């Protein structure tokens, strides 16, 4: 069941996330709730989705038990602020951030890790 009211693809299970990572070279997944720190990140993703055709954008509900794959990822150790945002290249985590990020911060990470589109 979808839990996040965004226009982005929502990954509901760990298996779906794995599939997404296998099918796409560059993936950004924002794992959060419908809260004030998460919504601005979803909005940035919605805004740039059409522009960054080399990146697959998705969200995952933080409170879903399936999101344990992100919540408990070693890259998220010490994270204490929502959302947990993951950037994957060829299935591997290349960057993870905790808490709100603005447009520039997100696009800088995308450009640095996935190359300018």
């Amino acid at each position, binding site marked *: 069941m979808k839990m996040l009211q965004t226009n982005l693809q929502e990954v509901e299970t760990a298996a779906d996330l794995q599939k997404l990572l296998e099918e796409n070279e560059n993936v950004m997944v924002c794992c959060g709730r419908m809260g004030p720190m998460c919504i601005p990140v979803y*909005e940035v993703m919605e*805004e740039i989705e059409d522009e960054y055709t080399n990146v697959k954008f998705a969200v995952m509900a933080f409170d879903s038990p399936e999101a344990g794959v992100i919540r408990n990822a070693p890259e998220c150790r010490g*994270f204490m602020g929502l959302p947990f945002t993951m950037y994957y290249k060829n299935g591997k985590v290349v960057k993870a951030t*905790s808490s709100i990020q603005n447009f520039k911060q997100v696009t800088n990470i995308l450009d640095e890790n996935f190359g300018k589109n």
Partner: protein
Amino acid sequence: MSKDMYDVMILGAGAAGLTAGIYSSRAKLNTLILNEGAVGGQMVLTHEIANYPGVENISGYALANIMKKQARDFGCAIKSNVKVSRYGFEGNVKEVELEDGRTFKAKTVIVAPGGRPRPLGIPGEDAFKGKGISYCATCDGDFFTGKELVVVGGGNSALEEAVSLTKYATKVTIVHQFDHFQAFAHAIKEAKENPKISFVMESELREVKGNENVESVVIENLKTGERSEMKTDGVFVFIGYLPNTESLQGTVPMNERGEIVVDPLMKTSIPGVFAAGDSITKRFRQVTTAVADGTIAALSAAEFIRTSEVS
């Protein structure tokens, strides 16, 4: 480089800017909203709005989305996550330039940039954001279950959020710069009666320290100047809001707090330039007051265009 010309250009898509967009596009004025952050502004920071008349209970995100849809349905163009690099408000044609080089022109401008949480501005704040420093108790409170926290501030938000954080934390210490609180009596009473809350008054944080996560804070007693280090697992910051007007300095008249000065019709002293919402000089900052300001600003802008065209 585009050279679009609009009737009304609105800077900010919070409650004030979106309302101005609804009114102005519904009046068949060619309207553009440019927004620096997420559409909805502070509304999306609010989990539940229970005092917006006509709507019993709604999340700030949902209310913002309805306003955005209303504005778009009336034909208002909205561009969000842009960064304005230059403002030209003098003269009959108002112009702004974005960082990416695009320029937009309009007959009138409504400035509605709202406000943002005031940061502590001390060493360690940026480094530990999301790793022990938070500005939202509802979002991050549960990461601090069984831990000790510091809450900075002495207004309603600080006291109410400190009480809500005691659901998770074993101990909450409120650090406040004055010897009294600027909050409603019931909020003060509730915080004072909570056995998990203690108070460090007339003091300010000077540094946040730690390795991977926050481990301690340096507190200065403002009366004695003495500094001490206190162990803590996290810091929640609720020290008020700042108007988002720094980049507008010198373009519109402001008071000493950086709030834009307007008359009751939301006019600034520059012809064709109006302002609305939390960024103007006013006492009460609410969704309802922002919506009212946005309405007045849009109607004033429409009147300005009408009368300029007649003369």
